[in-house]
């Protein structure tokens, strides 16, 4: 492993030394895979997840060997991470889009065959379409080093289903970048155009590749070569809501131990989260959350020539009254991408950690659950030596729900207490199907001092539906509240009906059946959990 790293580094250094000009950074897309679905399932401990506390939450997996090391790009470009749906791996996960604005590949091979220029790449239906034409220029400087303005070289020709997915980028005659162990998967529910299923051919993930070292600070005007890798993992059709209060990023620096290269207290990295809309588009100008981490509290694990460490990004919310920024979780309701889009230490090579470093602690994080299908979306970080450290800690520290819901079962009035910290995906119902509890959340957009902030606002939609029955029944609703499991026993007397109460705290009026009513409605109305008679 060390040899391969050294070899790659040597290649990178060699190529970097050849570079003469810095081009305009462009966005690159790279998609990666996961090693094994069954492995993820094996790693996921649902019991543990139900006992989560803020200290040991379980959330997100970053694909195995998804990426090596990267330079974080300029603000408009950068390193992107997306997240995928466990158990539904798209065959597109290993499609790689590569954009190199300096040391460009002269030839791009997919499956051993050169791909035509002006290829296009389609993301899965519903997640947008990208058309990245190859724009090759013949502007060559220097003896060895052809220089291209842009080269977007795209996908494996999935329709041909190459048995071995292999991409290589030749950069002149001095360097090539190899992506290995890419995968196609067996269980993808979608079908090829001819109606046949996708089948797993190989799995593993993106392997080693190299890029220029001696990376140039993109903010500097001097030359050098910079290769930008942006990455998107297949966004998944997540329906649950994830709450994130911080992310932890593993950081790697292969630069010199010189202070010029070492990130220090004056340096920072910015992380942004973008969310796909329903059509699968992303508004790159409108992240739903941003967080900047200074490197002064950088925790080093391996000081010296190369070091890695953990960098925590806290998500902040701006108090509309004071304007002060305070820690607050964001909610992500759907597919999203995480981007490292600003790093002021361009001379430092920094990025996600590859498997070369194994001493980082492995962690597992719970991610989410589709309440409709019951499908769980979660990921886990490998505890094996192949760790990519980007942990998302989902936390729901605040749930502005009604504190209790009162309903009647026969002559008996029951109170359902709603814990303040409810993880909406962890509701278990053991009472046949006669009770359901649904908690829906949302987030609001607020404008403070001309800036838009997105704050979570959980709409606190709690519905209890109870079908009348002629039999006495007893059930239990257990709601896990991040370490505070709450069980509510619900009893129903024989022959009784049960009043249905629907409570929302959105200041709207509802009747006792939970239906929204207008201001002119007369009778018993419920607003924010309180009953009124009008």
């Amino acid at each position, binding site marked *: 492993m060390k040899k391969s790293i050294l070899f790659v580094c040597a290649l990178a250094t060699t190529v970097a030394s050849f570079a003469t000009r810095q081009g305009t950074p462009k966005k690159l897309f790279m998609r990666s895979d996961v090693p094994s679905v069954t492995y993820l399932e094996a790693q996921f401990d649902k019991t543990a997840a139900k006992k989560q506390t803020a200290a040991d939450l379980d959330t997100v997996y970053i694909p195995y060997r998804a990426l090596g090391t990267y330079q974080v790009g300029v603000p408009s470009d950068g390193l992107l991470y997306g997240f995928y749906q466990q158990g539904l791996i798209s065959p597109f996960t290993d499609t790689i889009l590569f954009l190199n604005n300096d040391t460009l590949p002269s030839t791009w091979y997919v499956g051993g065959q050169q791909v035509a220029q002006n290829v296009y790449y389609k993301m899965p239906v519903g997640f947008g379409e990208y058309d990245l034409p190859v724009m090759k220029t013949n502007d060559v400087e220097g003896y060895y080093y052809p220089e291209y303005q842009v080269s977007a070289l795209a996908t494996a020709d999935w329709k041909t289903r190459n048995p071995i997915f292999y991409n290589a980028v030749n950069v002149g005659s001095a360097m090539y970048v190899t992506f290995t162990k890419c995968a196609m998967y067996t269980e993808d529910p979608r079908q090829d155009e001819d109606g046949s299923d996708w089948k797993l051919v190989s799995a593993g993930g993106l392997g080693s590749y190299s890029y220029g070292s001696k990376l140039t600070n993109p903010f500097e005007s001097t030359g050098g070569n910079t290769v930008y890798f942006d990455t998107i993992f297949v966004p998944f059709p997540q329906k649950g809501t994830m709450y994130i209060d911080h992310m932890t990023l593993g950081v790697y620096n292969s630069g010199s131990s010189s202070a010029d290269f070492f990130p220090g207290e004056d340096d920072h990295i910015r992380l942004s989260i973008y969310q796909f809309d329903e059509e699968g588009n992303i508004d790159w100008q409108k992240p739903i959350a941003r967080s900047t981490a200074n490197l002064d509290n950088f925790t080093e694990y391996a000081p010296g020539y190369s070091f890695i460490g953990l960098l925590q990004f806290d998500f902040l919310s701006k108090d509309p009254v004071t304007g*002060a920024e305070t820690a607050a979780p964001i909610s992500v309701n759907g597919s999203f991408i995480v981007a490292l889009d600003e790093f002021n230490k361009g001379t430092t090579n920094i990025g996600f950690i590859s498997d070369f470093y194994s001493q980082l602690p492995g962690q597992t994080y719970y991610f989410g659950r589709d309440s409709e299908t019951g499908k769980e979306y979660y990921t886990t970080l490998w505890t094996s030596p192949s760790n990519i450290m980007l942990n998302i800690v989902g936390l729901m520290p605040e749930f502005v729900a009604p504190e209790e819901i009162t309903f009647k079962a026969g002559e008996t009035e029951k109170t359902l207490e709603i814990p303040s910290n409810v993880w909406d995906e962890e509701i278990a119902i053991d009472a046949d199907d006669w009770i359901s509890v649904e908690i829906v959340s949302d987030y609001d957009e607020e404008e403070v001092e001309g800036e838009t902030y997105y704050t979570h606002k959980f709409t606190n939609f709690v519905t209890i539906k109870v079908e009348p029955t002629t039999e006495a029944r007893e059930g239990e609703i257990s709601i896990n509240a991040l370490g505070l499991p709450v069980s509510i026993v619900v009893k129903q007397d024989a022959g009784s009906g049960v009043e249905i109460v629907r409570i929302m705290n959105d200041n709207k009026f509802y009747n006792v059946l939970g239906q929204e009513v207008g201001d002119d409605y007369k009778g018993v109305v419920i607003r924010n959990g309180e009953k009124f008679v009008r």
Partner: protein
Amino acid sequence: MKARYVLISLAIVTLLGACSREEKDLFDKSAAQRAQVALDNAFSILTEETNGWEMIYFANPESEGYNLIMEFDANGRVSATAKNATTTNNMILTDESTWAVKNDNGPILTFDTYNKVFHAWSDPRDDGDGLLGDYEFLILHADANHVKLKGKKHSAYCYLYPMESGKTPATYFAEIEATRTRFVGNGNLFHAVTPDGECLLNNGSSGVFSRSQVGEKPAEEDPELYPFGIRTGGIQLSLPLPEAPDTWYALSGSVFANDNSSTIFTASPAAYFGEYTEIAAGAWVVNVEDINDISKQAIDAVNAALKKAYSTNKKAAIKSLAFSQKDNGFVLTLGYLGTSSSKATEMDYLYSFEQQSGSVRLNYLEPADENAQKVLAAFPSLEPLFKSLNGTFALAAGDAVNPTLGMKMTENSNSSVWFNITGKK
């Protein structure tokens, strides 16, 4: 000349004596007999204590001391009762098994069949180590008042004392828990004052003191650890401190003292306020409900402003004020409910802090950062509140054994300015 004769005579007598064929025993019994006597002695001491024994069990030299009730009977049965978070999930658990004393290079007390209470520490569990506890002990000392054991494998010292009569396990463990809170709750910090010097005993809440020099924090790497156990009458160390040979420190007034009171453990309020924040990294939480009138009025004013600003949050109010030492200085952390009805927003405000003889001087300086400044700008009534805590305060601990349980701070020149604090760690 006379002296020479005397010496010669002595030499002759000595040499003649050396030729004697009779060797007088140093001991009056054989080694086997003596070992049997020791075993019999231990056996009878352990079994004749009708109330059973209070055992302070140190699983290994780095383990906290666990309390057990041990009852040995002459038929070789032993009952062990424990209640702790590590092995019994804080439930009172009793189990019976067998025990014996035997000779193995000394008298050995062995718990020779599995006891789910006692062997919980020595069970290797899945990892092969478990809690690294012993179930066989060398009996170092045994009399009716005190038995001292040494773990055969891990060499931790353990201590047994006769149980008080008429005390049920529930009563005993409730008393131990209350005593533990009183002695070392909230991370109480002790000065160990000995004839050979003074040191600090930190991190008492963990059951293992970290020893450091006065004014210094415990070493982060390889701290000097001194496990201890709690008895209602005092603190039982597993190993003695370097400065003092004793392991038992009985509560005497507001200090813990060894037998001749030459060494004491004390939590002195005079220097305690600063040490608790700087050395023990604790915080002093101000009671915002029971506070002097000026501060109370200021709090009410802030609360009114918070309720007005966050009108949709019925719970908007100050939740906490706490002094602590942070990287940027000595701060008062304001916690309030604003946008959130459940999670307090916290902001730091810098104070100057000076430990004076028997008192503490506090003086509000400024917001600790930009966010705190914004909050202060939005709620200017905070400043009178912060300034109401200015002054030079005399400290009066409610219980001098552990000032973290509550101290009243009274302004030296104006006794109407006071507030109460409790430690939090």
